[in-house]
């Protein structure tokens, strides 16, 4: 009897503890140190680069000062595992309130797990009160019209972008002075190559292990892809007369299948030659190195320069024991003796969209507070804090960039970039696994072109097929969305906003369907071209 009573007490205690812990997980409540109940807004991102976490912390503190019942909790996740972590959180229903949109977020995941904020951004931002943007709809207060937070397949705004980005060359100014006697950064391609050669000679004469450019699997292609695209500018214009002057995978494949270009075309070979010319100034075997290895090389003074994005500026500056200079990528000009034939000169960055975009998850338990925090993040005062603390380029109009961010402001002068050879997974795999034929000791543009010719077309077709499945899925999704809009519009014919949304959705759908048919035609052309080959 006594034993039974003790067992019952034990079991009951176990049950109570279990229920209490379930409750704590299911209904968490935060409290401040002084015992006030607060609502916690969790915000996750992958930007572990210097400056971002500090900026978000500061923004969180500013917001908390205005809203004492709210606590902002930052969750930084390493980029490498971000996708895995994200999927687990979204599917498990435990996602933070606000998540950075980008890596690992397909259209389908966006549609399923994120709340569109279109209604939010169509109205003026209350946090812009007292500024010139006070009466301007939030979407028009960003330098790119907030296209960085817009999804053209789902026709909704999903994210508030905080920053502009660009790619630049970083220089070790102290070392530059030792090599050249001045801190003048190269402004033309020939000056750039001459400087690289000077660095090599300097290394040899001083016995110092020095490479001109720190390369890696991450940094090397950033520079070389941009240089390559400068060589396909004219080719792209020739291939698409009266076209939209924009590169797209459908046209690229169609032109390839039609024989209008191949990896052995003169412009493409020129691009590869340019890549090899620059790659020789990177450390041997750089394609096996990671991003951190290249940064390590640079900050340790083993390399004169490194190519990276504006997002690395704060990290590099804080780690480097020397002064860091920044300059744009030096593209070959039209009068360059070796590379001027196929280029139109510098590449415009006018098309760059605002990045570091944060979206609202449907799993958020405090959607109104989260939306308000997003409004705050997208406001002029908040963006000023962002650029001042992170030293990243601001995204909101009228916000003066921090002096450290000024070199990274997008350069809007310049010609349209040409097309790249590989932008999708399978094409990038073929490209990446063959790149040794270009950069290797016995590599050459012709060898690289030959190995690409074997598999690149198939890979591009495979990517387009996969992309077509996704765009078909989007079209099917839009079918139901359009049905919803047309019925709602019929019931509320004077609802202007609904009419506008329906109109845009209709337009987008017709053009998207056109894209689907063109993609299918390009794939058929590719299949036909393959069958013709002996």
């Amino acid at each position, binding site marked *: 009897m006594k034993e039974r009573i003790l067992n019952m007490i034990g079991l009951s205690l176990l049950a109570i503890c279990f229920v209490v812990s379930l409750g704590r997980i299911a209904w968490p409540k935060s409290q401040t140190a002084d015992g006030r109940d607060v609502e916690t807004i969790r915000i996750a991102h992958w930007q572990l680069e210097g400056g971002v976490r500090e900026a978000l912390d500061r923004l969180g503190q500013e917001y908390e000062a205005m809203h004492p019942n709210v606590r902002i909790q930052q969750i930084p996740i390493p980029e490498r595992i971000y*996708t*895995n972590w994200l*999927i687990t959180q*979204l*599917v498990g229903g435990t996602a933070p309130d606000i998540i950075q949109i980008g890596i690992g977020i*397909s259209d*389908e*995941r966006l549609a*399923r*797990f994120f709340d569109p904020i279109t209604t939010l951004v169509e109205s003026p931002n209350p946090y812009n009160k007292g500024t010139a943007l006070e009466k301007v709809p939030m979407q028009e207060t960003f330098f790119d019209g907030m296209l960085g937070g817009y999804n053209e397949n789902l026709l909704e705004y999903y994210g508030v972008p905080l920053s502009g980005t660009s790619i630049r060359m970083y220089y070790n100014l102290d070392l530059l002075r030792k090599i050249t006697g001045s801190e003048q950064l190269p402004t033309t391609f020939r000056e750039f190559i001459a400087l690289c050669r000077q660095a090599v000679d300097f290394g040899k004469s001083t016995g110092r*292990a020095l490479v001109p450019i720190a390369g890696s*699997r991450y940094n090397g292609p950033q520079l070389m892809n941009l240089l390559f695209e400068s060589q396909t500018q004219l080719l792209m214009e020739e291939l698409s007369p009266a076209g939209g002057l924009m590169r797209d995978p459908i046209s690229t494949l169609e032109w390839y299948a039609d024989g209008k270009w191949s990896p052995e075309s003169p412009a493409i070979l020129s691009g590869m030659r340019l890549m090899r010319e620059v790659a020789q100034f990177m*450390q*041997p*075997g*750089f*394609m*096996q*190195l990671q991003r951190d*290895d290249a940064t390590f090389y640079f900050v340790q003074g083993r390399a004169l320069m490194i190519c990276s994005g504006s997002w690395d500026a704060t990290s590099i500056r804080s780690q480097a024991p020397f002064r860091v200079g920044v300059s744009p990528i030096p593209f070959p000009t039209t009068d360059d003796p070796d590379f001027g034939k196929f280029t139109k000169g510098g590449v415009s960055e006018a098309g760059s969209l605002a990045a570091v975009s944060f979206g609202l998850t449907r799993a958020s338990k405090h959607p109104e507070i989260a939306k308000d925090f997003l409004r705050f993040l997208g406001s002029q005062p908040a963006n000023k804090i962002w650029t001042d603390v992170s030293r990243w380029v601001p995204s909101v109009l009228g916000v003066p960039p921090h002096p450290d961010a000024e070199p990274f402001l997008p350069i809007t002068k310049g010609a349209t970039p040409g097309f790249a050879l590989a932008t999708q*997974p*399978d094409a*990038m*795999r073929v490209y*990446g*696994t*063959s*790149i*040794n034929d270009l950069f*290797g*000791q*016995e590599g050459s543009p012709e060898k690289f072109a030959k190995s690409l010719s074997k598999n690149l077309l198939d890979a591009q077709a495979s990517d387009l097929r*996969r992309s077509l*499945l*996704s765009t078909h*899925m989007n079209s099917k999704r839009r079918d139901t969305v359009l049905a919803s809009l047309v019925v709602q519009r019929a019931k509320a014919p004077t609802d202007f906003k609904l009419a506008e949304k329906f109109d845009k959705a209709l337009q987008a759908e017709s053009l998207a369907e056109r894209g689907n048919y063109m993609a299918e035609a390009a794939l058929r052309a590719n299949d036909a071209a393959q069958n013709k080959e002996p």
Partner: protein
Amino acid sequence: MALPISQKKALLEWKLYLFVVPSVLLIAVFAYYPTISAIYHSFFRWGGGDAKEFIGLKNFSDILADRVFWSSFITIGILVIANVFKMVPSIFLAVLIHRLKSDRWQYWYRVILVLPMIVPSLVTLFIWKFFFDPNLGVLNAALDQSGFKTLLVQMDQVFGWGVFFEGVPTAWLGEPALIIPALIIWGFPWVGAVGVLIFLAGLQSIGTEVYEAADLDGVTPFQKFLHIEFPLIMTQVRLMLVLLIIGTLQGYGLQFLLLGENGGAGGRGMVPGLWMFNRAFIAGEFGYACALGLFLFVFILGLTWINNKFVRVEK
């Protein structure tokens, strides 16, 4: 072996079975459910989220035409064979430790062997990645210092490998032709603590009278190994073989960390597991990756069956 109990008695003591419930639940949720889910999703076009479309056996028919997948079996085949040979140092070391006359020294050698297990394998992998660095890595430095690099350059000129050049650091993970050698070299001297301990346990079950009889017959140390020790540890060898084959076939962490998601230069390091990862997380084809996983599972099951059937242990 436990004595059977009557059904009536089993029902009477039904409450005891509740103690098994938590473990069963955990296994069901974390082992069986993911497997069943993978089998289910292998019949769908699935992007990893909620949207999925039933496509029947299409994923499986796509596998048949997947050149990258089939060529990855060549790489994994080479690695499996290499790993079988890499068992030899562990056996050799186990025999050496076993033959030490001093128990105290045997103990200390076991401790020395086990201590590195504290270091997570991920750390070891990163250290090896650093070893392979063409400019700062220990491997290239050692080859240069020892003069072995010159020999390799000369051999390269004779055989036409095109990977070793005088004055040019060797890119062990950047040259297609060196990827597989690098994956084989990894882990040198290939003495795995777990393997050594398993073999040692097997060796220690051999009675001393066997050795005494062998000494009386004038058997040499090598003959002792060949005719006494090796046959008597075949159970452990078979176990290690199964674990090795399964581990190598399934594994891709090594290749992913050293070479990236595309298998490195020339895709030479692509193995079936890495291709499954690539299709899921790079291409977003989760349904197809599930089908690949299922195929791999059936393949490994088949190999295990063959191993069990043909690698017999004489009792």
